[in-house]
């Protein structure tokens, strides 16, 4: 079967005709919705942790001290966490983000987010922290088993939590049952 030029033209016209016939004006509203990035959602999780975890008073240097979220390693949040901080308080205290450089003390915050670039250093962080009431949050597969209290991982496209309850209890942090109910409880390796 060979297409004659006239049949060819018909196909071309059919294509264009279809396009034109289907072209009702003003249908631009069905644009693609934008995806939410992993770290926007993870930032929202960090904010929620301030509400669902109880810190002992000893966790704060002063009664009016800020609630500090520290990040060790590469900051994957971009500016998202700063926006989160601007928008709220935690336990009646202003929120603050600290990006920690190597050598900075890591115990001066209430939540410590351990970036993926620091996975190899978790053990030394934990040693430094001892039983200080700092909620440690991981970002890589296996971080909870490595000893971080909460790990945020992406499973099938959604962010899920793993909680190392034993670690949290050792540091006198009380994680609400609501959070525990939504998380997978894991134990330290070894």
């Amino acid at each position, binding site marked *: 079967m060979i297409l004659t030029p006239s049949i060819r033209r018909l196909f*071309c016209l059919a294509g264009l005709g279809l396009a034109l016939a289907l072209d009702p004006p003003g249908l*631009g*509203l069905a644009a693609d919705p934008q*995806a939410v990035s992993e770290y926007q959602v993870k930032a929202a999780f960090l904010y929620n942790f301030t509400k669902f975890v109880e810190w002992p008073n000893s966790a704060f240097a002063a009664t009016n001290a800020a609630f500090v979220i520290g990040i060790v390693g590469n900051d994957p949040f971009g500016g998202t966490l700063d926006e989160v901080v601007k928008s709220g308080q935690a336990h009646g205290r202003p929120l603050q983000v600290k990006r920690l450089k190597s050598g900075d003390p890591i115990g001066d915050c209430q939540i410590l987010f351990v970036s993926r670039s620091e996975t190899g250093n978790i053990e030394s962080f934990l040693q430094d922290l001892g039983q200080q009431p700092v909620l440690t949050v991981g970002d890589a597969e*296996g971080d909870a088993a490595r000893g971080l209290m909460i790990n945020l991982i992406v499973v*099938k496209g959604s962010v899920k939590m793993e909680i190392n309850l034993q670690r949290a209890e050792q540091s006198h942090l009380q994680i609400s049952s609501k959070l525990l109910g939504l998380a997978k409880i894991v134990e330290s390796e070894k």
Partner: protein
Amino acid sequence: MPIRSRNRVSPYSRRYDIMNIIRNDGPIRLSMKNEPSTPKRELTAAVGKICRKGFLLPAALAIFPGPASRADDVTSTNSTHALLTMSLEQLMSIKVTSVSKKEETLSQSAAAVSVITQDDIRRSGSTTIPDALRLAPGVDVGRVDSHEWAVGVRGLNDTFASSLLTLIDGRSIYSPLFSGTFWQAQDVVMEDIDRIEVVRGPGATLWGANAFNGVISIVTKPASETQGVLVSSGSGSEEYAAESLRYGGKIDENTFYRVYAKFNDWGGFDRADGTPANDEWWKMQTGFRLDHSPTDADQFTVQGDLYHLSADQTVSIISLDSQNQPVSNPEAGIWQQTGGNMLGRWTHAFSEKSDFTLQTYYDGEQLGLPLLQQTRNTLDLDVRQRFQLGSRQEIVWGGGYRLNASDLTGTYTVGVRDSSPQEQIYNVFGQDEISLVPEYLRLTLGTKIEHNNFTGFEWEPGARLAWTPTDKQTVWASVSRAVRTPSEIEHYGLLNLAAIPAAPPFQPVPVLVTVTGNANFDSEELVAYEIGYRTQPLERLSFDATAFYNAYRGLRGAYDYENLNTLPSYVQVVTVIGNTVEGGTYGGELSSTWQVTDYWRLTANYSLLESDGLKDAPDNITGEPTANSVHAPEQQVSLRSSIDVTKDIDFDLLPRFVGRTAASGIGFTGSSTAGAIPSYFTFDARLAWRVTPSVEISLVGQNLVESPHREFNPTFISAQATQIARSVFGQLVWKF
């Protein structure tokens, strides 16, 4: 108003799953992360649920600020606020564009891989897959005529015998008839392509036989990302019509589908002497894809396609005349090809680092060439599992079965000695990725063991080492072995290549030149040594350099000569093929992307390919080993300039220089129809205007400088090389 890139992406933000390339036969995971415009219907669904509960409507609207929103705006205050007001359960149900651990960045893969994204394809104006493949470094694409392409990686290229494994969505499109890909028959709606992954170098450890010089894997988007109507209509001076119509819908929150139909019609090219080459063609295709994920952990995909193409072709038909003398006459015929396929896949995730995939497909094809008829049925079944062993090892293992049943009818020109070859392939493979020093040093060891009834057992081991001193740098090295198994023609074929008329007194009778396959022809072997370095010294600048040495053994060459003819009316010179060619090729590829400004990106690719001669065994007529061409250009340079003139206008320029190919168009023994292809320089250009967010009009000019030029010589069954001419093409793409 500041002009911002519509899709500003450095190659290092192209996070994708190296698993797909190195471990999986396909699109098991959606993994390109560099398409900010990607619709996320799951999110719509999640937010839709929330909205129906009667709260958060303003918040939800804030996440979807409307059609004018841009990828850059995603991290907007509004959407972050919206997320902060959600409950934990809602947060946990939101689908995110993940950059999860297992999805390594391209910058960390221990192989020479590059990814052609949907954005790259769109902005190149390509309407065929082979044209889009020109965008990757180290790929040589030669258009033989209007409907034939030779696509190779690192040499040994041919229309029918490229040393390259090719797949669409995990389904092999490599034809065992000629060990190549019928590119004219392989198509998808260009706008539905998620990405094309190009691996240079063997991928046999996981992909098996024929992942020899490289692997090309075309991955389409999941149905959830192709929702709504797409109309793409184009017409040009060479391609008269390129029409695609696709509709994507949703059955429920977990089930999405799309159906499409497309039609392409190409005009003919001219030969060097200006006469028409008689190579006009058209093709129609329809298909569907259904994705169902009943749980977070399970993903079912069913997809299928049906196509038919018809191409004009003039070929040399050889026959014996009334005096029993061989004569050759060009005859106009039609290349007809009809086929269909159906694929099913189930993926179950046990955890982020452990999953299981079961895939099966059927592929049927009817090929009606003027010189050969073939019906082929392929059935394929694959399983693979991935899991963690301890904290430092990730194991992938699996197995597969393939049945290839073919029915061949030859002619005098192309004869077949077995009319129904059947091939059964069993394989098992295993691979262990070991973190020698977590985050810094990874060693990957693996092998595939395969059995086929042509050549028996094949063993394809590989070892790769990747060192990532910083997250912006990777150094890698690998050694791997691959084989190319014989094609049906190489085992059972008999080709009468030429009939040379009598020229008395020196040659009193005509000579018939014949090449025959050889049932003992064994697999061709390759051991590849590769090293590579990737770095991103600046946020906006990245480099990728690779070097390779490919050591070949048992490449196809002339093994023996015999005379099949008992008639006195002519002399027949018969060449029997064998695994006689040995040698090495070496070279490398350089690729760099520079985001000059927010609205201007430059990409440059360079590739070099040298050979030590690929020597044949000493010829028993001359006693001298003959050298063989690598059938690919020695050097290629290409540049891509992508400018966002305004947020609605794109302007792209794609100049390329393709060096001389010493010989192309292999017959069976190297040089019978071979001829050099001179170097050429040409460029493509594209101007696109998004009239509204849903309508894009574009004008594409191809081969604008030098017109016309040859890109590749035809193989034996086509008559003459054609010239690739300057062309223009206009297109309207409308989505709603």
